[in-house]
């Protein structure tokens, strides 16, 4: 079905885009890769009066390394993340996560900013950015804000973005020495959204014990979840798979999975435990491969 007709704007600068959104208010929708918005438009689930196409905003395409952080522009596409183009190669978790998104056509056009702004509870990149302790940079008529990922994801398909704000970039701390990453995902068919996915980062100390561990889950509630109790309990341990399994089994998983047509809450909870152990174990093995 064709979308309901709308006014179309393609501003040439971020300032222009933000001021347009400010004047159009809730009636306007920004368009990035269109891989979530186009289906919503053609199914007529959203009927904006105006679409503000971001594709001319080259300033949102930049990837910059600045000391210990990587800043990834909102319009950087999944395919560039997957391939680890340029400095993106410094963030292997993002690479592994992006490779699991949809199909090659989705990855050719879909953007990191669009995925974070859309905030699908089963999406890879929001949970990956949570596991990486990322910060979301936004720009509105009233100025710029830097929002920790933890606060950015506010609920089901809901973020801290205001209607007149654009997501401009995501800032990620670069991994330190002896750090490993892993994504473990279960989906029913290639290209489907995950039922549950676990994103783990493990850093070891020189003695091979856990200095820091972070694990985030997609598909286990309205927003990506971090498993704080598991993360804390791992610190100081020699992370063999048995040890990780023991820790995960004895800590409550701070998740609230729902039952839906894809899976029951109980099955999601089961998957969460299994995938968390696998992701942490593989991340720890990756960290060990760096040597002392």
């Amino acid at each position: 079905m064709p979308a309901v007709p709308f006014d179309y704007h393609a501003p040439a600068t971020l300032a222009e885009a933000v001021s347009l959104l400010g004047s159009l208010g809730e009636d306007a929708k920004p368009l990035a890769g269109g891989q979530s918005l186009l289906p919503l438009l053609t199914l007529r689930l959203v009927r904006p009066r105006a679409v503000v196409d971001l594709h001319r905003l080259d300033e949102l395409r930049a990837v910059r390394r600045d000391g210990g952080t990587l800043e990834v522009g909102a319009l950087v596409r999944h395919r560039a993340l997957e391939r680890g183009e340029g400095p993106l190669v410094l963030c292997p978790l993002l690479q592994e996560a992006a490779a699991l998104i949809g199909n090659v056509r989705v990855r050719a056009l879909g953007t990191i900013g669009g995925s974070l702004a859309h905030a699908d509870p089963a999406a890879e990149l929001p949970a990956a950015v949570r596991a990486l302790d990322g910060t979301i940079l936004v720009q509105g008529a009233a100025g710029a804000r830097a929002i920790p990922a933890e606060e950015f994801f506010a609920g089901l398909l809901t973020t801290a973005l205001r209607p007149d704000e654009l997501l401009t970039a995501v800032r990620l701390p670069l991994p330190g020495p002896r750090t490993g990453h892993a994504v473990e995902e279960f989906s029913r068919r290639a290209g489907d959204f995950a039922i549950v996915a676990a994103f783990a980062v493990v850093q070891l100390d020189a003695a091979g014990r856990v200095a820091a561990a972070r694990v985030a889950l997609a598909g286990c509630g309205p927003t990506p979840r971090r498993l704080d109790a598991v993360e804390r309990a791992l610190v100081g341990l020699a992370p063999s798979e048995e040890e990780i399994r023991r820790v995960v089994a004895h800590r409550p998983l701070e998740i609230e999975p729902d039952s839906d047509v894809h899976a029951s809450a109980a099955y999601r909870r089961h998957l969460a435990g299994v995938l968390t152990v696998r992701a942490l174990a593989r991340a720890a093995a990756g960290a060990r491969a760096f040597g002392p």
Partner: protein
Amino acid sequence: MTELAIAFTLNGERRALRVPAHRTLLHVLRDDCGAVEVKEGCGEGVCGTCTVLLDGEPVSSCLVLAPRVAGRDVVTLRGLCEGDALHPLQEAFVAHGAAQCGFCTPGMILTAYALLRERPHPTRADVRRAIAGNLCRCTGYTKIVDAILAAAGPGEPRDGA
């Protein structure tokens, strides 16, 4: 509602037309350009029958707005043929019986074309991964994968997966 003038190349030929901004590339190609080799399946980016190459990369034309193709290069299946001569991928699909109803075939071949340009001698696993987003309701995929590997010809060792 916005209407705008766009110009782009379609299979090497320049096209200039006026389109409403809310029209998708799929409908521009089929309805305005007569490129009916581009098929409409799901209309939501899942099935791959509407695949075209946009500046060389496979995309779902059902998920691209018309204004986005201004100044860009679009290739449909027809763009792979040289006159009446079929592309080696098309020849391989015929030789291997990789098309039955044929509805998925244009998208399948364009996806394979993009894969072979990036990776001229893919493994069986590479091919399966590349076409995972192109659904076929007829063939069971085996003959499609065989055809793509045959078109690639012998090269680096294959994994036999």
